């Protein structure tokens, strides 16, 4: 059976040029294209849905207001992901400070489940996420970002190098280091029976 012909997508470069001229439609198209990538990266870096959405919002504002800084050498997607990564790391630092301040008040900024229609599924995923987050916390922010781009978005070494503006060799060594550390620090006992 033949596939239905897909409509031709406007290239990012053209959308970026229009977005620079404050074209709302172009901006929204770029948002629609990359919002999920941005959200997934932010979520994996912060482990919290609402924080991830806040980071995506802040990153999008930075990206659209700062389009004059975008030289177009890497694609818009990679540029946006770099902003998301940096914003998430800043956010994470602010959250640590906030958490420290809140300890005395008895409040907590720990991750909460969200978006789950099925509470049982949410709970199970929350347990698994806690195990994974604990292991991810052993990674430095840079290594964690590299690994998230690799594991979550499936970016190639070259694409990650573009996104983070680092040599491919550094990407490879960071991913190796991340894997080793994660495997060492995962609580395999708790993960027994995970299908």
């Amino acid at each position: 059976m033949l596939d239905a012909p897909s409509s031709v997508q406007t290239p990012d470069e053209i959308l970026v040029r229009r977005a620079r001229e404050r074209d709302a439609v172009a901006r929204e198209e770029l948002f629609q294209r990359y919002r999920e990538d941005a959200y997934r990266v932010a979520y994996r870096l912060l482990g919290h849905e609402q924080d991830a959405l806040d980071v995506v919002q802040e990153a999008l504002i930075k990206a659209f207001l700062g389009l004059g800084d975008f030289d177009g050498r890497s694609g818009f997607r990679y540029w946006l992901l770099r902003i998301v990564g940096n914003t998430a790391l800043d956010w994470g630092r602010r959250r640590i400070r906030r958490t420290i301040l809140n300890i005395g008040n008895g409040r907590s900024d720990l991750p909460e489940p969200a978006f789950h229609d099925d509470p049982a599924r949410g709970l199970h995923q929350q347990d698994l996420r806690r195990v994974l987050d604990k292991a991810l916390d052993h990674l430095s922010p840079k290594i964690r970002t590299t690994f998230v781009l690799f594991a979550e978005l499936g970016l190639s070494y070259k694409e990650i190098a573009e996104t983070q503006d680092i040599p491919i060799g550094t990407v490879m060594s960071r991913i190796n280091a991340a894997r080793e550390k994660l495997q060492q620090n995962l609580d395999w006992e708790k993960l027994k029976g995970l299908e």
Partner: protein
Amino acid sequence: MRCDEAMRELNLPSDDRDDRALAHHLAECEACARWAEHAAGFSRLWDATRPLDPPTESWDRLWSSVTARLDHSGPVTTPDSRPENPFASVGDAALQHSSPITRSWRGLAAIGLVGLAQAAALVPAVNLYWNTSDKNVQPPRFSTSPDVVQRTAPSLDSEIDVEWGQVLLIRSDGPKVEKIDLALLEASNGEDPWYDLFNSVESASTFLAMTE
């Protein structure tokens, strides 16, 4: 296939692997087989914890906030008009009016004030010490040589000029007080300029003050 090659293969996306050679090695090497088993377990864990896509209302709300902010902002910045901000990640220059950033600058200013107050408290003490040194008062026991005192004491006799709007880290690094203009710090190799800042603070023997 050697163990290091097997590890490298296991780190590759599954489509790019040499599965036959890898399977052969794993059948013979217990350590690598265990590693492979853990790697597979990790992949399952990663998949099981993938985030669900936020509901449409969340995206709509988010986009409304973004467009509202963009509509109230000035023209898109260009490299020529971009203000220098040492803490700016990529695109941060555009967020001059953002509330979180403003809050963090306020925080910095508060830190700077506290730091300056501490530095101000140090100045009379150091001056007093140096004045008494001039009157041939015995130096501390651990230091019999005046050179040593000279090397370890920050030279606070010179004034530090701070221009309005400058963001400075003032630190002592061995014999001299160093003034680092954070506005001139460049993000190197795509690294976050905050790392540069924290490295500067950590590497200082005495952190005196930061001011805006």
